[in-house]
């Protein structure tokens, strides 16, 4: 039986299952144009902007690696780890249009040996953990040009 696909956090990204492709959801300040991720709804981080009006926008789905690392040991709770634990890579990715750096896990199968600062990556949605009949989803980064590493990310 197919698992139900549920975002692991509400409102932070689209799964793209309507055919638009997955994207992170940030905010854009109506006053000064500052972006934020996760989205701000109450205040603008710009000290010279008093705007309280924000639009929710999909962020660029491609960016370049600002830095990267991996997690050789199982992170503590509340991380829900696979059993047995499988190490994964993380990357901080610079989005040119928004001029911000956003973190994410790399998709499975990527090791630090595959990565270099400045590499282009693209956003995908992938299973973070499964519990009961649900697959809990999160955004991840995937090297541009790599095939679909995990099935189903495109919905």
């Amino acid at each position, binding site marked *: 039986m197919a698992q139900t696909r549920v975002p*692991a*956090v509400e409102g932070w990204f689209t799964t793209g299952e309507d055919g638009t492709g997955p994207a992170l959801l940030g905010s854009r*300040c109506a006053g*000064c*144009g*500052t*972006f*934020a*991720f*996760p989205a701000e709804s109450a205040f603008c*981080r*710009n*000290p*010279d*902007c008093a705007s309280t009006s924000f639009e929710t926008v999909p962020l660029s789905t491609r960016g370049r690696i*600002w*830095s*990267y*690392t*991996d*997690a*050789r*040991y199982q*992170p*503590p*709770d*509340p*991380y*829900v*780890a696979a059993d047995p634990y499988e190490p*994964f890579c*993380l990357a*901080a990715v610079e989005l040119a*249009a*928004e*001029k*911000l*750096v*956003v*973190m*994410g*896990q790399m998709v499975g199968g990527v090791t*630090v040996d595959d990565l*270099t*600062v*400045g590499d282009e990556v693209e956003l995908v949605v992938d299973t*973070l953990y499964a519990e009961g009949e649900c697959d809990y989803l*999160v955004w991840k980064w995937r090297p541009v040009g790599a095939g679909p590493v995990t099935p189903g990310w495109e919905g």
Partner: protein
Amino acid sequence: MAAPQDARVAVLGAGMHAWGKWGRPFAEYGLAAARDALDDAGLGWRDVQYVSGADTIRNGYPGFVAGATFAQALGWTGVPVSSVYAACASGAVAIANARAQILAGLCDVALVVGADTTPKGFFAPVGGERKDDPDWLRFRLLGATNPTYFALYARRRMDRFGATEEDFAQVKVKNARHGLANPKARYRKEVTVAEVLGSPMVADPLRLLEICATSDGGAALVLSSMDFARRRAGGSTPLVTVDAVSTVTPTFPNAVIEMPNFATDSAAAVEPAPGFRPSIAAAAYAQAGIGPEDVSLAEVYDLSSALELDWYEDIGLCGEGEAEKLLRDGVTALGGRVPVNPSGGLSCFGEAIPAQAIAQVCECVWQLRGSATGRQVEGATVAVTANQGLFGHGSSVLLRR
């Protein structure tokens, strides 16, 4: 904003409970450190007119009201207290509070105390299902531990400045040697580059021996007004003063990814500001009217061996990209021009969060008095500490004798 004519306060006493994994309630470490500092000052508990506590968030309610917890442990005297939390910078903010009380003329003698009891392994967020807390969410959604962030900075140094894994290992080797004779340090064992590089990789490129452990410990200071210190002068111990305390926050837009955030600020509307870390000690230098060239020694927050190299640049010991050369030339080792972490640093202590920024100051006090046996920086006259607490807390204290 007018600077006070004399914004100095005197350090009359410094005290510590040794760092370790003792498994006792944190208040016991704080109490021991406080008594130690009071003895060092030649003062009694009843001489204290203000208690400034640095909080711990992993030890229940007593940890949230640390100032009161320590005051109760010493015996209620009616003394006013405050308790502050600023993550790793908590100790510096506690010092800043005590200093402000003294400079405002509200008290003559203040006691600053921080102590912690820590769990084993990676720091985890406080328990419960807290989906509006970025510190909880970064573990849940990314599995991003503290070493994840340290490793991102380390990799960036390698990419931008050609730092090598051996450079990072050499920082550990240096600090291990520094801490050998420090009776308050938890780890007192020399290590070789080969041993560091042979230790398990935790968060590439950082290895187990390069990442600071979590420790139990306690540190305390007795601070006083300059007038009070002068009235008591006459002993053989040189008077050490706190000349500046910086507790700055970042300036928008901060282009460096900071723990526990998912993203940096966006620089789409405003040009990126100068970095946060370089602004921390810069504010202390500006307050004191001196510069990094005047510094005899520094205690910086080596959460990882690689991060110590970032600090060399951030506290102005060298220009950007020059830290590796400073290390390789032995400038920051004992015997060099400006030893960094003569105490052994977090590398030899492990981190006892609310006590750590206070412990940095304790080491500076002993160095400036010339009493840091086995690790003394000869002729030290000016010392600076630097540290950064998550959620945007800068911390730097400048001391002079």
